[in-house]
């Protein structure tokens, strides 16, 4: 189970980082989603994965079963999920707003922070130029 999750986490990290390096903003957003899930699964794996050993203390027992899973990482993930949910919601809004304002989702056309800002959208579809 550990190996399987390690592989899943690895693929998610690789895919997330790859998508984050794409030019399209929507793909970057997908990358962010993949990456936050990769992180959450990493923490999940850290909490030890064992079947049928709940971290509960029985009526007669004084401590949990030896080798049972640690419940704390799952609480941490819950917090992390809520945070990444908020972040994603903001990112979606920001990207949508940017698209409305600039008319493109191409990261390479976001030059306004470095060059004087034109009043009108200065982006043209490369396909349009070919005609």
């Amino acid at each position, binding site marked *: 189970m550990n190996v399987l999750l390690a592989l899943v986490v690895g693929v998610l990290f690789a895919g997330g980082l790859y998508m984050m390096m794409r030019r399209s903003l929507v793909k970057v957003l997908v990358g962010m989603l993949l990456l936050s899930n990769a*992180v959450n699964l990493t*923490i999940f794996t850290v909490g030890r994965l064992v079947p049928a050993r709940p971290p509960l203390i029985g009526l007669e027992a004084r401590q949990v079963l030896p080798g049972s899973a640690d419940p704390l990482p799952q609480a941490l993930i819950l917090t*992390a999920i809520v*945070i990444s949910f908020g*972040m994603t919601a903001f990112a979606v809004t920001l990207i949508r707003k940017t698209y409305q304002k600039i008319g493109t989702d191409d990261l390479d056309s976001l030059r306004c*922070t470095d060059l004087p800002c034109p009043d009108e959208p200065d982006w043209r579809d490369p396909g349009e130029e070919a005609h």
Partner: protein
Amino acid sequence: MLIATPLLIPLLGMLLSLALWRRPTAQRYTALFTTAAGLAASLALLGQTLRGGVQTLQVGNWPAPFGITLAVDLFGAIMLSVSGLVGLCVAVFAVQAMDRARVSGGFYMLFHALLLGVNGAFSTGDIFNLYVWFEVMLMASFVLLALGGERAQLEGSIKYVILNFMASALFLTATGLLYGLTGTLNLADLALRLPQVEARGLVTALAMMYLIAFGIKAAVFPLFFWLPASYHTPPVVVTALFSGLLTKVGVYAMIRLFTLVFTGEAAFINTLLLVVAGLTMVVGVLGAAAQWDLRRLLSFHIISQIGYLVMGLGLASQGGLAGAIYFMVHVVMAKTALFFVAGILDRIQGGFDLKQLGGVFKARPWIAALFAVPALALAGLPPFSGFFAKLMLVKAGFEGGQFGVVAVSLAVSLLTLYSMSKVWQEAFWKPAPADSPLPLQRVSAWLWAPALLLAAGGLAMGLLAGPLVDLSNLAAAQLLDRAAYITAVLGGVR
């Protein structure tokens, strides 16, 4: 209970701004009171820490290391006071400088949320909690940056959000792995347990992950690119707030973690930190030299000054840390004041382009003086605060035998002076360009008073350097005395 007040007051401020959502003017004046109260509470906490050592609070009375711990040592209390001061000054400046549309859009609520996140990061004693406070601060800063929705702002926000998201993901991964390795999240408990971990390679790797995560937040070389791409886009009030607090939280987290938790790998990490510090200083100041937009120029100087803070940490001696702490207070005041002056110049002449500014020295000599004091302090000339800050760092560098980074830091000081004299020459001395006549309107006291307060603070830090250097030394000694921190947090548990 005093330890929780720097958190509760901004929270109250947030709630009040929400309650007064439809009354922007009332929000402006409420923020003055909440930030003043926040500063008073932080100063009181500083006094208490001076008298009684590390202050702790076990939230909900769950004993450490199982519950959430708030722990403020002298360094933390100094940072809380600085954040209180910046908060108050920004609130005063914003009364006039923040436009009504943005106030209606929730500026004050976000401003308090940012202060809450920053203060939380300064007062927590738990690494996952630190992550959560970082996120509180980041979310507020995301929205503050984009608030207003101008094109440059949106583009800057995208770059800022994506790169800071990367940093947060790294921070969270490292925290998860650290928990897997040690089974604890409490900083003091981590400090005890980490030396017993067998897999040293993994510990070093985790230290590097934290270094990169905090390096992105602190904007060190080569991870700073989000800063000059975004900091100049929002209104100058927001930039002043960010420049005073955000990157400094990254440096604070670095200092906290590398003096308390990751001490076993010191030799390797410290060399790396010194190299990074030198490069950060050089690249920042060279970037600034090429700029003609005042806000962009000052943004590059933020990066350059971060290098000095990292240098103090990399020297890893009491002198170096004391220098970093003194420098931190100095640079926060100087940079925030400079951004305020940039805002005033924008008010007077309607722009930040140095080529179109000019003649301010003749028309408004007082504004010029308000610029000159923090600018000279930033360059490190006596008798201003920056001189003593750099003196402490250079002295610690010589004591540690790190001549390379000392030489770089002195050369960068000269370049900073060059950059500041360029601004002086262009914006203040040069006659006003023909196409931008100086409209003779008064500069409101709401605008110059906070800049004056910070400039005077910088001057006072230079003139009263003795006691403040002693205070920094005391704070640095407390940082290095890990046993005292650990006992204060874990106390009776073991």
